[in-house]
Each structure stands twice: as structure tokens, then as C-alpha cells.
């Protein structure tokens, strides 16, 4: 697995190193060649055409870029694309579609746990990682688990309500 630090060429863009990666992206095996210094977020947004993960800071400070890497919520701006070879990445586009929403997406709509929506893909994926690991969290646990995802529109109360609702739906026996 490529674990080189990001290097910046002092020459032209063409002279920069690229790495071949093969990862499972939203359930599909995906091959790409990416510049070594690209973050996962850059790969998703600039090359894979997946713009659901947002860039709010590019510094691991806001959570807008949250995706799941082998099921764990990570800041995609803090992971190098080259590191994801052989691994599983899920972005918001892989969770559900408007026709087939995931219970979390559905719950965010029911509880109106969104305003501008810019932070929401990250909030939902952070919540998914939480519920996958802890199916029955309480409100305090949800608040803590999502404390790395900023929402300037101030949806925190409703987001916690929506995550608890989704947890309850997910615990229901198969309908």
C-alpha cells in the first residue's frame, strides 16, 4: 500500500508522481491513477465525479468531507488517495438514492435535520459509522459521536433526534 508522504514537485504538473489505485468505491471496484499528493477528497471530487463529500476546511477541522473507509468514519481531506488502494470507501452517493433512501437519510428528512445541507452528507455518514458500531446510542452518545461534524446552520438538536429515530428504525425486525 502506498504510504508515501505527499510530495510537491517544483516542476510542471506533468512531472508529479502518480500512483495506480484499485479500491472498492460505493460497492464497485474502481481503478484510477491519482497524483501521489492527492487526498481521498480530491480524488472523489475531482476525478471520481462524487461531489457529495464537501470541502469545508481541507484540514480535518469541520467534518464536511466525512466518508467511510472500511466502515470507519474518516475525514477524506486527511487521507491520501493512494492509501485507499485495496480498501472500501463509501460516500453519501453510495448510501442511498432519492428513490431508495437509507433509514438515516429518511430520518433526516422526517425530522428536518438539515438547512443549507452542506454539512449533511458528512453528518449522515458519521452517524452511520456510529450506528453500525453502536445500534442503541442515547442522545448524549450521538452528540459526542458527531462532535467532529460542524453545522453552521445549527441543526444539532434535530440531527440528534434524526439519528435516534434512524437507530430505532434500524433495530426494528425486517419488515
Amino acid at each position, binding site marked *: 500500500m502506498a504510504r508515501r508522504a505527499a510530495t510537491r514537485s517544483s516542476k510542471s504538473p506533468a512531472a508529479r508522481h502518480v500512483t495506480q489505485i484499485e479500491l472498492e468505491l460505493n460497492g464497485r471496484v474502481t481503478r484510477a491513477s491519482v497524483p501521489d499528493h492527492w487526498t481521498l477528497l480530491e480524488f472523489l471530487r475531482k476525478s471520481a465525479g462524487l461531489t457529495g463529500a464537501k470541502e469545508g476546511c481541507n484540514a480535518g477541522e469541520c467534518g464536511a468531507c466525512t466518508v467511510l473507509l472500511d466502515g470507519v468514519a474518516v475525514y477524506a481531506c486527511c487521507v491520501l488517495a493512494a492509501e485507499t488502494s485495496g480498501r472500501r470507501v463509501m460516500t453519501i452517493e453510495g448510501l442511498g438514492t432519492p428513490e431508495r433512501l437509507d433509514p438515516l437519510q429518511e430520518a433526516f428528512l422526517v425530522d428536518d435535520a438539515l438547512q443549507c*445541507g452542506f454539512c449533511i452528507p458528512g453528518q449522515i455518514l458519521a452517524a452511520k459509522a456510529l450506528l453500525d458500531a453502536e445500534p442503541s446510542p442515547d442522545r448524549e452518545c450521538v452528540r459526542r459521536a458527531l462532535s467532529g461534524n*460542524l453545522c453552521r446552520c445549527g441543526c444539532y438538536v434535530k440531527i440528534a433526534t434524526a439519528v435516534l429515530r434512524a437507530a430505532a428504525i434500524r433495530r426494528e425486525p425486517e419488515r
Partner: protein
Amino acid sequence: MSDDCAEKTVETELEIEGRKVKVRAQVERQLPPWGKTTLVGKSMRRVDGPDKVTGAARYTHDVQLSGMLYGKVLRSPHARARVAELGLSAAAKLPGVLAVLGPGDVRGVRLGGQKVLSAEASYAGEEIAALAATDEETAEEALSLIRVRWEPLPPVLEPEDAMAPGAPALQPGGNVLGGGFGPQTPGKPEVYERGDAPAALAAAEVELARVYETPAAQHTCLETHGAVAAWDGDGLTVWESTQGVFFVRAALCEALGLPASRVRVLCPFMGGGFGSKNSADRHTLLAALLARRSGRPVRMVLSRREDFEAGAYRPASRQQMAIGLTRRGRIVALTSRAVNPVGAALEGHYFGSCVGPVHDFYACANVRTENYAILTSSPPPSAFRAPGHVQGAFALEQLVDEAADELGLDPVRLRLANLSANDPDSGQPFASNGLASCLRLGAKAIGWDSRKPPRAKAGRFRSGLGVAIATWGAGGGPPAVAQVVLHEDGSVVVLTGACDLGTGTRTVMTQIAAEELGVAVSTVLVANADTRTTPYCLPSFGSLTVASTGPAVRLAAAEVKRQLLDAASPILEAPASSLLVMRGKVRHAVTGKSVAVASIAASLPARMIVGTSQRGPNPDGLVLASFSAQFAQVEVDCRFGTVRVKRFVSAHDCGRVLNPATWSSQIQGGVLQGIGYALLEQRTRDPGTGRQLNAGLLDYKIPTAPDSPPEIEVIDAAPPYPANNIGAKGSGEPPIIPVAAAIANAVANATGRRLRTAPITPARLLAALSAEP
């Protein structure tokens, strides 16, 4: 326009961000108020929610065009400096760089009277040069190749330094200006006077004088400022993360000398504005200019650091206040002398007036305010959610509480006793006023009767209750045009220029149109914020979108309905006046005979019905304001000096609530921003260089989920509001106004100590706790 009153126009008044302006309005067709509604007033799901929760929503940041270049800006590292020499050639020669601009290349381009690139920096972060390259790394590398010989000048960072005799003049008129909504006359404060405040103060039975200070606070939209510009011949298309596509278009047309017909500005989704995205900014112009020079589309998106360093903010304030009261608690005099450092603000910059609350909140015959704006070597501020009122309420609403303490009166009662039946400034009646109900219902919800004095409290954790109020001009008004189109299959498109900032504009406009037309919401699509296809309105600012555009949408839908019933009349062999539209069918009110809306539309020669209407005037002689009373319950940790907001109650009169779900989200969001302002947020700068020290989200702390109270109770305390055809006033700004004061008052109730400087940090709180009471 198919309006009967098309020819008649009148002058009317509109209040934007606390400032009253006169506009002309077309007299509108009067619609009776809605009776029982089936869609309006219901918590309908957001129409754009599915796009937002699946990542399908495309924001300006997400726009990708073929051949798109990445634009970057060289900014001044100095708070005040001259560029003696600028070497751009090495950057221009770097392979992949397709356009470079320096101040000399954009001499004639003006944005609101200001240059877009400057060879004289008046703040750290000011734009000096710009370039565009095939990828971000190349653009950054090219920036590092630009050679600048700086002549640094001593910056003027603090208002005291700017006002000191012999201070370098930052602008020809000097550094001291009148405050108010924007910079006013040089040399003198903006003065407001009613009655004789100094005399009333001197004669008052009780007088208190206090000083309050508030920080520079930043909008911190999660989507940073940005634009993508693309030329097609001599036409320009710009995606901008903005609150107002028409203001962006006007700025571009003026700066570039283009006709409005050639400039298309779109904003399908945007990641937060809060007042910082009301028009085009320098990055917008630079994107357009670089795109023209390179012949390629250019994406110019600010980094988080740039968004902080060069971005907008709510100016800090120092407010010297005095209040005079009778022993029984009637307010007889109020004065304020306010100083606002406003950086490099020039005419046209707008930042709100922090003395507004002193004028507006209470019935008080004797008021005098003096307001200064002081120029410093810092970026210009801008409107930020209830500009001015947030700072002013922090001061006034604590002063009133301090007076209540002094007199031994209950703070809620003291407020109720001093509310004004009419607008205290103009003396004119309010169109509706639910402030007293806000206070009563909110007090009940928080359990105000259980409030104990500070002396009854001991131990490390101390709990307290606090209250504060707000009034805010939020009646909206013209100009706002809406168009409703009924297509041949019965589906409906609502066209409005209004941006949806996340407030639910698209959703409530859908509800209004569907309600008026009598069709299902699923048949209605709102297409908005595109200057080429949607009609004119003001930006989504000043809490005015619903109350401005909403009535226009209802009128346009009513016009479509009128034409629809006329067309149905021969088919149903009944006069149009006996017909109504229900669940997608035109129906005879008595016989029940019906015909589907779709088949009527399809039978028309035009195969469509179009209704266009515009917002009519506001009623003369009435003051249109929203009101709120907010209550905080805090727990102070006396060991660490931290404050937790345990419960929060936010009671509002915003007229009719069109969608309780989106409304309460907006209210809760305002409360959260208020909590940040009260406890966390302040821009800090290096006192030597003037550079921002906390230009990142770890250091400029906005509230996180654990900073939020677990619940924020939102109460609708509105009486009926007759001043427009949908019965709604604005609600965007009122929820932030009283928050910080309510929290500071709760901290005082918990500890017996007054924190007169925001934010209430642990250091300040511990210092106050260790001082003698």
C-alpha cells in the same frame, strides 16, 4: 402583467436590516386572507431535502466544467503596505498557468467603487494579484513565484490608536466617521435623539451607567465564498454561492460594462450566507476576468483561511450605556455612546447599527445615541444576521437586567411594564405585536417562577435563568416578482429569483402556490435563483424573503387560478365564480361536477397558463416588526469557568408560520449562532502585525453538537398579521438577537457576577468569580 391594477404605482416603505428605505410598488390585487389552509401551516418535508441527503445537490463548490481552471489570489501579508514592485512574469511562464492579473491589468474595474486588486494593502489578506492554472497545485506554485517588493507601513489596529491625535489617516477624511448602518460623515458621530435624555437621566430616581464590549465575529459559512465563471462569446455565466443572484448580476454588469441580458448568475444550492454573501465579491470579478483572459472557465473558491482572513465579520463594539428609571421600574432615559472599529470600510459597506435596540425595544421618551465608526487596518465588515442588533441587544438587555437587580424587580415584569404599544421611534402602531405573549409563554415554558437569586446558590455548579427580548423590522416588501406556470399536463412551475439559503424558501413557496391553486404539492416545482429564467427580487437578507416573495407567489397563483376557472366555465357550463379548485380538479361548488386541471390546460390554445405578479406596497402608517423573547437556563462550572446552556426557550411572533418544521430549524439555528457569539466566537489578531491568529475552525470556535443544549424549545406566539396576503413576517434574524444577553443574564443569575464582555470565556468568568462581588 395581467393585474387589474397594472398602471397604479405608489411609494411604500421597506425595512432592510434595520434600515428603512422608500421604494415604488405596483398596487396589487387584494386577496382575502386564507381561511382554513390544508398545506400552508403544515410541516411539509423540504422539497430539496432528498437532493441534500443523497449528495445530489450541486453547490457552487461542486460545479465542474470542461477545461475549467483553478483561480488563486495573492494576498497581502501586511496589514498596511505599498507594493513597490510586482514581478508576475515567472508565475506567468510556469507551464499550466493561463492567466495572470495584477493591479495594473484591472485599473478600470470597480466593485462598489473599490478596486478588485490593489497595489496598496489596507489590511492583511487584501487582494494584490490573481492567476488561473490548469490545477490547484500549479496555481499555488505560481503564486509562490510572484515577486513582491513591499513597503510596509505601520498598521493602525485598535480604535484607540486610530482616534489618537497624529494617527496616520487611513482615508482622506480621517479615521473617525459616523457609525450607523455604514460609514457616515467623517469627523462626527451619527446622533439620534428623542426627548431630552441627559436631563431625564439627571432627574431619574435611579441611574445606572455601564460599559459593554462585543467581539468581531465571523459568519463561517460551511461553504466558503466562491464563484465559477464561464464566457460564451460576450456572454458571461457565473455560479456564485450567494444570497442574491440579482445583486451579483448588477455588480458584474457595472464592473464589466455588460448588459444584464448577457450576464447569467445562478445559485441552485448554497452552503450558508448569514449576511456575508449579499452580492458579488472581489473573487467573483477575478473569476470573470481570469476566465475572459484565459478563454476558459475559472473556479475561484476561497480556502477556509482566506474566508477568515479576508472575509467579512460582525464588527466589534464598545458601548457606553446609561439608563434612568423610576423606583417602580419605568424606564425614563436611555443613552448609548458606541464605538465600532470597521476596518477598511468605505461607502457602500454595510454593517448595521448597534444602537438600534436602544431606539426600538422599549417605550422610553428620552433617548440619545452617538455612534462612531472607526477605520482601522483590518478588512471591511459586513452585515451578519441582525447586523447591529446582536451587539446592541447584548448591551441593552443586560443593562435592563442590571436595573431590575438594582431595583429588586423581576426582569420579566420589568420588561413587560416597559413594552411599547406603538413603535417607540416613529410613534406609529405596529401591524401586529406579540412581544408580551412571547415573554409570558416563554417564561412559563422555562419555569421562570422557580428562578432564585444568586445568593441562594453555592457550590461548584450553579444554575441560572436569564431572559432577553428583540424587535426587528421584518415585514418585507417590494420589489419581488413571481411567475406561476401551469403546464398542459397540470404540472406547475413557480419561478422566483429568491435564493434558498437553507431556510426552506423553495418549500414554503411550493406550499403557497399549491394552497392557492388547489393542487397537490407533488405537482409543483419551484425553480429559483437564476437571473436568466427567474423574475427579480432582492437578495435573501433582512428576514424578508417569505414576506416579500411569498405574497407575490400567492398573487401569481391566484392569477393562474382565475384564468383556469375562466377556461373551465364553458366546459362545466357554469359561471367561473361558482367554481373552485380542489385536489387537482375544477369543481362546481354546488353540483360537484368536475374536470381535471390537466385537461383544461391541455384544451387551451396556448396549452399553458402563465400568471405573473408582484409584491404590492406595505400598508401606510403601520410598523412591521417581528418580535422574540428568549430564555436560557445555564449551568456554570465555577471551578473551570465554563458555561453550559442546559435549556433554551425561544418564543417568537413572526406572523403566520408557513411550515413549522423549517421554521423551527431556522429558529434553532439562530439560537446556536447566538450561543457561539455568547460563549465561543471572537476573531483575534496579532497586535503587532494585524494578522488574524485564529483563521481556522479549530481556533475560531463555532458551536459543535455538544455545545448545543439537548433541546431548544421553539414557541409560536404570533397574533394574526394583516399586513400582507399570506399573513407572515420574517424570522431569519430575530432568533439570534437576544441569545447572548439571555445567556449573560443567566450567568449573572447563577453567579451574581456580570460579564459585560462577550464572549464569556472561562478566563473572563474565572476572573469575575475571583474578584470581589
